[in-house]
């Protein structure tokens, strides 16, 4: 198992020092050449920036939507099991389908969402959404729709283990629902939210299929050419396997840095270290 995981990573680090064609067998040692070329490429910096915008934007909104959804579904009401099933469904349908459905919903000519938004006559509302200026918003909303159930499920599972006595005590003390949320619920959710934030942040930063399928790497897609898409294009559109490997290594280093900073800033509690 270690071989499965570590060997490709090691091989990747090694490849990063070569100028290698993705299909031909030849390779030339270039040392840090790939890295030097990459760091002087404005497209690279732009892709890092876009991946960051995407990861921060979509992760934040997923957390808000997921917590809100979990609070709604935590109560018992008629049809709550049904609604739980429906709320999980966006996560279960294949990403490809989710993206295609949203491309259709947001279609510049025939899309139902631009049509509905158009009937509201809000000043400054764009008529077409899959354009350079706004495609990032579509990407973020679509990603929130697809991935917020992950947050919802984890938060809901935790909510159900909070002892009701805590709320009884807060109520006796006269705490309002809002105060109960901030003083009882949120502290209890801290650990699960930290883990979910880390996982979702990592997975959104390295998400390839959603931005690629939404933008196809060209046209307005340039406005969502995040680091994973850029890496894919270097490796398989320009066949620069060495450069692709170097870019993957940069991604790995960035993630390891993020994880380290994260765990130093928010050390996990004892129970979770062992879980």
């Amino acid at each position, binding site marked *: *198992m*270690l071989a499965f*995981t570590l060997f*490709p*990573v090691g*091989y*990747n680090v090694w*490849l990063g020092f070569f100028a290698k064609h*993705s*299909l031909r067998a030849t390779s030339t040692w270039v040392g840090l050449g790939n890295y030097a070329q990459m760091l002087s490429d404005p497209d690279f910096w732009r892709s890092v920036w876009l991946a960051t915008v995407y990861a921060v934007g979509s992760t934040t909104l997923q957390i808000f939507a997921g917590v*809100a*959804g979990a609070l*709604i579904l935590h109560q018992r009401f008629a049809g709550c099991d049904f609604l739980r*099933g*429906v*709320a999980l*469904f*966006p*996560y*279960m*349908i*294949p*990403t*490809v*389908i989710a993206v*295609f*459905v*949203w491309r*259709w*919903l947001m*279609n510049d*000519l*025939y899309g*139902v969402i631009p*049509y509905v938004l158009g009937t509201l006559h809000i000043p400054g509302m764009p008529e077409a959404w899959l354009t350079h200026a706004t495609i990032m918003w579509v990407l973020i909303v679509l990603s929130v729709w697809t*991935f917020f159930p*992950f947050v919802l*499920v*984890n938060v809901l*599972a935790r909510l159900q283990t909070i002892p009701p006595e805590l709320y009884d005590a807060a*109520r006796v003390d*006269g705490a309002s*629902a809002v105060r109960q949320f901030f003083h009882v619920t949120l502290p209890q959710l801290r650990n699960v939210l930290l883990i979910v934030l*880390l996982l979702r942040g990592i*997975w959104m930063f390295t998400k390839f*299929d959603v931005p690629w*399928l939404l933008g*196809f790497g060209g046209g307005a897609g340039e406005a969502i050419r995040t680091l*994973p898409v850029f*890496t*894919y294009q270097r*490796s*398989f559109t320009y066949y620069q396997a060495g450069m*692709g*490997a170097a870019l*993957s290594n940069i*991604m790995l280093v960035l*993630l390891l840095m993020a*994880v380290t900073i994260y765990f130093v800033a928010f050390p996990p509690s004892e129970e979770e270290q062992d*879980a």
Partner: protein
Amino acid sequence: MPDRARHGRRRPVSRTAAWALRLGLFAFCAFPLYWMVVSSLKVSHELLASPPTFWPHEWELRAYRKLFYETNFWTYFQNTVVVSALTTVIVIVAGVIGAYSLTRYAFRGRTFVARVTLLAYMFPPIIMLVPLFLLARQFGLVNSIPGLALTYISFSLPYALWILRAFFQSIPLELEHAALIDGANRAQALTYVVMPLALPGIIATAIFTFIVAWNDFLFALVLIGQDELKTLAIGINEFFHMAVVDWGLIMAAGVMVTIPALVFFIAVQRYLIAGWGAGGLKG
């Protein structure tokens, strides 16, 4: 106690608000799916009509006929089922044995292996894209269904181990000891005592593994070039390369891929919830 009364009985305003929120959540989750189904059943001119009709005036199955008779949909479907099933079976067999040994045998570095497993769970597959592709080429695993399955196995197995481990840990050792004292060997204890108890966990893990393979786009895109070997994810993507993009066809394909997932999902929902508690999702 006025305070108790206020919180004990919900006011009509907050009840209405609660239902509005529930309805909002429902619409947010369900509308895109509703729109997919409706769009797949509309006649062509209505599909492109402005303003769009929320309930079609005319229904037809044109898109589905085209999907079944004029595209390679069934080939893609079969390939996806084969590659997902292959991945799932191998991951479950290897995962059950691996997770069992992780929880039952004490060996040096057991905690270390557990940590690495967690890291592997977080690990984004795209980082392995280039090395896996080059290795696959070297071993002749490009344009091959087993090659694709092997790729999925390599990044599903670590987190299958991660979930299964949690389930095995929850099964009391005493039960196994009882079986061993009665003369069963390790393999028998695993098969007759541990496995039945861990079955919900195994089913949950199988589903998650299946979903990884069923949903993957990236590795299929890189490793499969031949049309007759394509999986659904990359096959449906081809529909965009037709001269005129047929949205009805694409939505019909979406429905056909989603319905089996939906039926399957409803059938196994209670196992899924069990698996989620153990941190079984990825993507």
